[in-house]
């Protein structure tokens, strides 16, 4: 499962940077492997905790650890089956939603409907609305800014040079804040927002300056090779900015999705090992590392091909749009999680692309896909819920 995630999702993050020739395929594979492994090891644990204990309280099952093990196994199986069916049908489902639905299903059967923490389900339902809308507003807004301040000027190349330190600064502020609040949560830094700002702003300013000189150096190389100050130069600047956001996507992916694959496994492992159901399932570091390595292996095995296909196929996502979409998504995720709004990464990116489309910045978009997204979101919870119930019953019947 982890290898599969690696080949597809990560390759997607890097595809546009490779497509615009900002980096080579080999570089993309290495960068995403490192960022992903870092994400999984440094930031993975937190998410895993939520999945195993947030919705049902394992203590209610402490008398029957076997049931808990079977239940978690049934949940993992149900979610896995649904994600595969959905991928086959071309429905973009959220892995997190699938696991949550499956855990609810097993919870209803084992501890009863009244003992399920429904408070955790409400945010998921809310996220169906908040993720795309927030993504669209922020992604579209960033595109409008780039268009007004860079593309619509007499010398867009000069304008992009002037604005790129500011953009680099903003990207770093968002990325560092995201790292502090989302990524490195299990380091228990417990920083206030102001303190986090105090850390991120100077670092971002530093990188903004470094970026300025790096770009100037790049420009000198480019200008000597290519006298014309054309669109391709502006594009190459954005391709490099996009690389930053792509690294963030890989990191966030390591933090979230590796945990998804490993999480239920960790719960089962812990229950088997201690023969009891603990309140707090701690995912051992080595398990996350294995998850991260599996994703990396998937990338090594299939990544290059997938990245190549994506880079060539999604020509509609040029670096400018790609940057706006990804930076918009990263900002949305940061802002929404600070405000306590629930969001789903994939759908924020879709919302962001559509937002850029509404701002007339994207190519021709097929909004009918949104209908599929809505259907898949609505179907995921009830389907995995019922499937997990069924699998739980079958497994209980077979084993106990």
């Amino acid at each position, binding site marked *: 499962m982890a290898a599969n995630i690696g080949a597809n999702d990560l390759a997607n993050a890097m595809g546009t940077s490779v497509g615009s020739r900002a980096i080579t395929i080999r570089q993309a594979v290495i960068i995403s492997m490192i960022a992903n492994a870092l994400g999984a090891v440094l930031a993975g644990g937190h998410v895993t905790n939520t999945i195993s204990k947030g919705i049902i309280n394992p203590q209610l099952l402490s008398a029957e650890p076997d049931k808990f093990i079977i239940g978690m196994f049934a949940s993992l199986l149900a979610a896995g089956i649904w994600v595969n069916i959905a991928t086959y049908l071309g429905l973009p489902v959220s892995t997190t939603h699938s696991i949550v639905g499956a855990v609810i299903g097993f919870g209803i059967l084992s501890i009863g409907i009244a003992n399920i923490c429904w408070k955790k389900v409400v945010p998921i339902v809310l996220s169906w609305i908040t993720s795309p809308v927030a993504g669209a507003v922020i992604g579209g807004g960033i595109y409008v800014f780039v268009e007004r301040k860079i593309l619509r000027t007499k010398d867009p190349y000069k304008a992009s040079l002037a604005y790129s330190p500011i953009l680099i600064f903003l990207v770093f502020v968002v990325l560092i804040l995201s790292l502090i609040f989302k990524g490195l949560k299990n380091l228990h830094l417990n920083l206030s927002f102001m303190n986090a700002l105090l850390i991120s702003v100077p670092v971002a300013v530093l990188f903004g300056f470094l970026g300025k000189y790096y770009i100037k150096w790049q420009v000198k190389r480019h200008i000597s090779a290519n006298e014309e100050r054309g669109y391709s130069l502006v594009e190459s600047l954005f391709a490099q900015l996009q690389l930053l956001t792509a690294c963030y996507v890989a990191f966030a992916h390591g933090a979230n999705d590796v945990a998804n694959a490993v999480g239920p496994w960790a719960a089962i492992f812990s229950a088997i090992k201690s023969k009891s159901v603990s309140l707090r399932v701690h995912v051992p570091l080595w398990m996350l590392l294995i998850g991260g390595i599996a994703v990396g292996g998937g990338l090594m095995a299939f990544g290059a091909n997938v990245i190549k296909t994506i880079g060539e196929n999604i020509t509609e996502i040029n670096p400018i749009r790609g940057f706006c979409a990804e930076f918009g998504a990263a900002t949305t995720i940061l802002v929404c999680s600070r405000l306590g709004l629930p969001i789903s990464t994939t759908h924020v990116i879709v919302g962001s692309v559509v937002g850029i489309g509404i701002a007339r910045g994207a*190519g021709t978009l097929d909004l009918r896909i949104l209908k599929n997204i809505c259907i898949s979101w609505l179907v995921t919870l009830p389907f995995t819920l019922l499937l997990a119930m069924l699998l739980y019953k079958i497994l209980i019947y077979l084993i106990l």
Partner: protein
Amino acid sequence: MRWLLSSLFFKSPFENLQKHADKVKECAVLFKRAAELHMRGNYKEFEAITDEVARLESEADAIKRNIRNHLPRGILMPVDKFQFFQYIREQDKVMDEIEETLFWLSFKKGSILEELKEDFLNLIDLVIKPVNLLSPLVNQAKIYFKTHLDNDRNKVKAICRDIRQWEREADFVEKEIKFKIFEGISDAFLIFYLIRLTEYIGSIADHAENASDMMRAMIAR
């Protein structure tokens, strides 16, 4: 997610619009040759070229239908869909008018008087110029919708201006020819035939200008 992003993007209709514009350009070249052959009295070759134009027109029609039939509700374009349809309608009408003109020419052999031949050839030259600019217009617009750079937008605007300019000149020559027809010819039947011919030829440039007006509206902001 990979599936999601690649499926979110729909094939741009501008590729087909370019193919359509190229067909129009091909037709314009043939149109001039056909008119010259007609004036020289080589009606056999004239007929052959007219058939060729009719074939191109039906091919272009198929492209137009393809574009229209594959832009259902729910497709979000970087331009207003209504304006886009208007544009392709006008671009298609350029071809229709070329075909109509050739048909009209074929109805009466030896109809263009010797003293008017040069004026007509001049008018045809002027009419073809804006038509030939439609293909670069679409190409430049395609670039602009990709880059959204102000510079590329100005290039589209410049082509629109050129098209308007040529249409105005064609209008002027059209009026002059009409004066000459009414002054020099007394046969009412021939006057009707030639006036109608002049108007047919003039309307080719009119539709090219209408198309460029629509393009100007599409890139407006």
